[in-house]
């Protein structure tokens, strides 16, 4: 647990907080990108290089851009006059705080029993690819099918409907 971990954790949490709290929706999307990048760096700290770069490619590269596109297509960048938080915001905050209290209590309670520092596992891209086409081939195929269905579904859902017959 070095200084780097605390810096990365602070960066990630600040990005997440800003993404949730800022008023302008475009600023929220940019803060979300910061949180995703901080998470990618945390993955790299955890010796999961492949997951870290996949995180950068998928989240910083694709999902963040998709969110910005959706904001611009829905004119969501205009801050509403009646406030950005919903009517039941207090209940939501209480639920989130309760969930964090439960998770935090469980972690603090079990902290002494958790495994300590271990040697870094040597994971090569060759090993990951080998595992993907042998042991994890069925999940891989299912994800491929899911992507096909998601692409077709997203296009059909977002496609402009033909003008209804008058």
């Amino acid at each position, binding site marked *: *647990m070095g200084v780097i*971990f*605390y810096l990365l*954790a602070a960066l*990630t*949490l600040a990005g*997440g907080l800003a993404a*949730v709290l800022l008023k302008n*929706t475009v600023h*929220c*999307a940019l803060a*979300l990108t910061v949180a995703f990048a901080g998470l990618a760096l*945390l*993955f790299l700290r*955890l010796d*999961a290089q*492949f*997951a870290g770069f*996949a995180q950068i490619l*998928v*989240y910083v590269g*694709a*999902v963040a851009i*998709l*969110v910005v596109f959706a*904001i611009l297509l*829905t004119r*969501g960048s205009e801050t*509403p006059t009646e406030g950005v*938080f*919903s*009517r*039941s*915001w207090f209940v*939501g905050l209480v639920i*989130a*705080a309760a969930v*964090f209290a439960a998770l935090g209590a469980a*972690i*603090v309670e079990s*902290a002494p029993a958790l*495994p*300590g*520092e*271990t040697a870094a*596992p040597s*994971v090569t891209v060759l090993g*990951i690819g080998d*595992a*993907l086409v042998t042991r*994890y081939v069925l*999940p891989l195929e299912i*994800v491929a099918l*899911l*992507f096909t269905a*998601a692409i077709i*579904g*997203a296009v059909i*859902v*977002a496609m402009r409907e033909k003008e209804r017959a008058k």
Partner: protein
Amino acid sequence: MTGFATPLAGYLLVAALLFAIGLAGALTRRNAILVLIGIELMLNAANLNLIAFWRYGPNPQALTGFMFAIFSIAVAAAEAAVGLGLVISIYRHTHTTDLDQMNRMKG
């Protein structure tokens, strides 16, 4: 700087905090896109948990938690695409992304 007993506890606490932030965002924001952003933060917190447990678990060479995180990233990407497509479709219909105004099921 040794705030936690083990490094794993530190990562778990960060993930729990990020999950709570995402949940608060998903439950309190008005804009449907911001709710999706909150859901993405929660999914990412779960991924951080998976990677941390894989790294400090008993048998990291088996790649189990690592693969779970990779597949989770893939599924979350598909979810984001479909979710934002739905938001755009609803916006075309109702001309709003305000969830407080989406209070009827009839189109």
